[in-house]
């Protein structure tokens, strides 16, 4: 009841502002995109966007929050944050089987932040920010410190508006070991204006979401343009959740998906605070491949990720979408499993080669599947200090020949202080594999630096490959037109290419691990040797031996007593 009243008030507020042609101060949109994948799996991507026209930076304290969550607003103003991107991912995105995701994310936790120019000590602000975020998201982000934070010099340009990009204000850190579970989803859901009570967030049930091949939830905060003139900025908060359900674990092998099968819920209403609430189903391969029911007349086309896709649109703000049963359960049934998937143009892989626990080699492979165009990629590698890289062994080869990068930035590591940072701009020739290899040596850690389960291994974060990939269709560069949310995540400046970020696998390396029971063994052995050896010697040297008469039996004792009485010497 409470949210309904609030919703009614806000609807009047929106109408009043629209009447006077004022730009909306608050806006909340929610969207779900469902894309059936070629392997029979299904990819669902939720996006919730809150836009708020306010100025956190100007010093006047913002105190009245409506749709924008107060915890994040206070974080932005207290730590002078210009942009914040945090993601929690469980699983690894398989580019070759699933295509490109709408919002890429590496396994584990990833956090990158652009601070405002007014910040004087970026490192201490970064440390406080990670502690505060660990409390908000119930994650161990407080383990982010100088040993896993890097300052990229060319990657991770701001996704929001801004004129100056001084990389001194950028920090990037990743925790590949971070586990994602319901305790991270709970506070994420509480940041939404409608919570998990109405709208698309009703579908977010943890028992189904975590029983999937890939689950990634993220929060992106950035300033954006309010109108085409772009003189006023407003703050945009995007909460995204990408999940890929496996054909065999969630659908029992049948190529038939429905909202109930995926989320164990159906939709009954849109969030009353949302100005738009839509579901898009990717039907570009329709109608030969699969059918969707209930049918909808609304269609929409969008050029996203270099391809022109057609979508069926279900508008949840319209009552007729829910039909007579007042609930929406979309059904997607496959008819045939032929046809090709559009092959992604860029792909990355990484693995550790070598044997033994002393040395090894990291190989990063970058695949360019375009038949005739070559394009540049920016590779960012952050390797922890305990893998000592030998940069003189760095080789970059494409098609067997040496490929010299046009830009290399390398910052060597310092033991226990900072990790290695390697950034390279490499031109990938068409239809080729580029291999980057570097040898390393494993360091011996101090006894207290090992985790409680050191035999599991130590993780090395994913490499990030950022690139402008040439696209087949013309991309939309108009940033202020009403576009579906999934196509407006990365800003697009030219029509012939689109920006893509690919993450490789994280690595798991074994460091030489001592036997932790050895101190106990050594103490036991030494004490035993000392006790037996020295003790015996001491006894032999200091004790004197006397012959002791054995105790006589009872009969003998009585006989002795009688003899004593008689005055005769005893036996």
């Amino acid at each position, binding site marked *: 009841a409470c949210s309904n009243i609030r919703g009614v008030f806000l609807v009047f507020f929106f109408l009043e502002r629209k009447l006077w042609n004022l730009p909306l101060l608050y806006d909340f949109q929610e969207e779900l995109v469902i894309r059936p994948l070629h392997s029979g799996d299904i990819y669902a991507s939720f996006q919730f966007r809150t836009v708020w026209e306010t100025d956190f930076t100007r010093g006047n304290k913002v105190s009245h929050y409506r749709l924008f969550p107060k915890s994040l607003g206070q974080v932005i103003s207290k730590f002078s944050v210009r942009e914040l991107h945090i993601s929690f991912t469980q699983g690894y995105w398989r580019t070759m089987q699933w295509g490109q995701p709408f919002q890429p994310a590496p396994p584990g936790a990833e956090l990158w932040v652009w601070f405002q120019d007014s910040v004087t000590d970026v490192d201490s602000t970064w440390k406080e920010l990670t502690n505060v975020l660990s409390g*908000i998201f*119930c994650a161990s982000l407080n383990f982010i410190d100088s040993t896993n934070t890097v300052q990229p010099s060319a990657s991770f340009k701001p996704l929001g508006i801004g004129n100056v*990009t001084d990389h001194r204000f950028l920090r990037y850190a990743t925790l590949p070991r971070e586990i994602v579970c319901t305790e991270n989803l*709970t506070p994420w859901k509480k940041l939404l204006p409608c919570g998990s009570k109405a709208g698309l967030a009703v579908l977010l049930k943890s*028992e189904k979401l975590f029983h999937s091949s890939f689950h990634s939830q993220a929060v992106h905060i950035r300033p954006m343009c309010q109108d085409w003139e772009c*003189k006023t900025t407003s703050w945009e908060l995007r909460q995204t959740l990408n999940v890929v359900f496996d054909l065999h674990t969630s659908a029992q092998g049948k190529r038939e998906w429905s909202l109930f099968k995926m989320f164990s819920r159906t939709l009954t209403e849109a969030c009353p605070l949302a100005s738009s609430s839509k579901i898009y189903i990717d039907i570009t391969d329709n109608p030969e491949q699969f059918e969707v029911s209930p049918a909808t007349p609304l269609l929409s086309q969008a050029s996203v990720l270099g391809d022109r896709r057609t979508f069926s649109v279900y508008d949840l703000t319209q009552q007729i979408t829910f039909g007579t049963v007042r609930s929406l359960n979309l059904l997607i049934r496959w008819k045939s499993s032929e046809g090709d998937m559009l092959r992604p143009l860029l792909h990355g892989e990484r693995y550790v080669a070598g044997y033994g626990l002393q040395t090894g080699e990291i190989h990063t492979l970058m695949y360019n599947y375009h038949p005739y165009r070559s394009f540049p990629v920016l590779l960012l590698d952050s390797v922890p200090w305990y893998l000592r890289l030998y940069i003189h062994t760095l080789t970059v080869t494409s098609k067997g020949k040496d490929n010299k990068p046009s830009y290399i930035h390398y910052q060597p590591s310092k033991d226990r202080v900072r990790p290695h940072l390697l950034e390279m701009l490499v031109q990938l020739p068409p239809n080729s594999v580029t291999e980057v290899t570097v040898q390393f040596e494993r360091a011996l850690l101090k006894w207290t630096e090992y985790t409680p389960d050191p035999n599991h291994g130590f993780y090395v974060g994913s490499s990030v490959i950022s690139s402008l990939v040439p696209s087949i269709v013309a991309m939309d560069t108009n940033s202020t037109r009403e576009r579906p949310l999934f196509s407006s995540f990365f*800003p697009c400046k030219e029509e012939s290419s689109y920006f893509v970020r690919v993450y490789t696998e994280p690595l798991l390396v074994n460091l030489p691990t001592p036997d932790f029971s050895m101190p106990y063994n050594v103490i036991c052995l030494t004490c035993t040797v000392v006790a037996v050896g020295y003790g015996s010697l001491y006894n032999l040297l200091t004790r004197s031996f006397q012959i002791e008469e054995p105790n006589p039996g009872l009969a003998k004792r009585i006989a002795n007593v009688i003899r004593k009485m008689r005055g005769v010497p005893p036996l």
Partner: protein
Amino acid sequence: MKILTLWSLFSTYLLASSLNIENHAAQFFSSGHTNNWAVLVCTSRFWFNYRHVANTLSVYRSVKRLGIPDSHIVLMLADDMACNHRNPKPATVFSHKNMELNVYGDDVEVDYRGYEVTVENFLRVLTGRLPPSTPRSKRLLSDDRSNILIYLTGHGGNGFLKFQDSEEISNVELADAFEQMWQKRRYNELLFIIDTCQGASMYERFYSPNLMALASSQVGEDSLSHQPDLAIGVHLMDRYTFYLLEFLEDIHPASKTNMNDLFKVCPKSQCVSTPGHRTDLFLRDPGSVLITDFFGSVRKVEITMETINLTDPIEQVEQSPVNGELQKERNSYVDQLPVSEIIHQKPKQRDWHPPDGFILGLWTLILLVFFKTLAFQETAVGSKPPYRVQ
């Protein structure tokens, strides 16, 4: 005569009911606490210690159900069982076999997880000596009118509790931590429950007032686990906490059950070990202590007949965009991969630092050798054999 008896009966009835009201009122305000906190710790890592996480989560669930909010609960789980890759049903932790009861639920907030659950962090949470940047959800912000419930589970021995297979906390350290809490006025009354092998040894050394302790087994005894689930493949709960959960499921926020019933939970016939308790440091009689004094968060309400005048609501001034400002420059999105800019990026000018220790030592050595050889040459050149004057 009849009127007299009637009147006397009526007056005795009034007297009795007023005494009753006084009793009720006395009971209402007897405990002396105003807020409740809970610190629930599971100290074991690895999949086969699933039951310890299930123990802690079942106590968490009961405590939340009886009213303590997440902001007043510090939950520490040393490993993740729900989203563990060996869990056949992800995002669930079951306490009863055949997957009857999911104690993990859909609304759980874990404050310390994984490698953060260490002896140091546990003691810092108890004593409040945390680094200044620690968020509120990770702090125990109790005061001198707080009743705190502390629940520990894991593997233990005579006088110690093992944390994550790599370190231990001893009973002396724990007793000292509670004394620190008492001296800093961080609790009103404290209930300490421990479910480990030889758990009674952990409360032997307590010496601060207002502490009540329960353990699942005596010194020299092992606490046993309850039942395995064949689908999940591990033991799901420990016996003591299983019967404790059963007991707590019957408690609701208004129940009047007291601590003496809690001491009777899990007798030797069910638990195989002998649960123990210690009440000598507790000032009140355990029979007068309600279960909800520690496990629930019952709000005391005082009814008043006074009227309070509310001030007028503040008029919300709409923050319209300020148009009278100077013509701001046009902002634009940043180029994501400006290739030419990157290639021609100037290398950062690093600050000059004075030479490091090794270089300094090397240069000192070189200079020393240089001057020594110079001096040696001088003396060699300068010294001539003394000529004998003829």
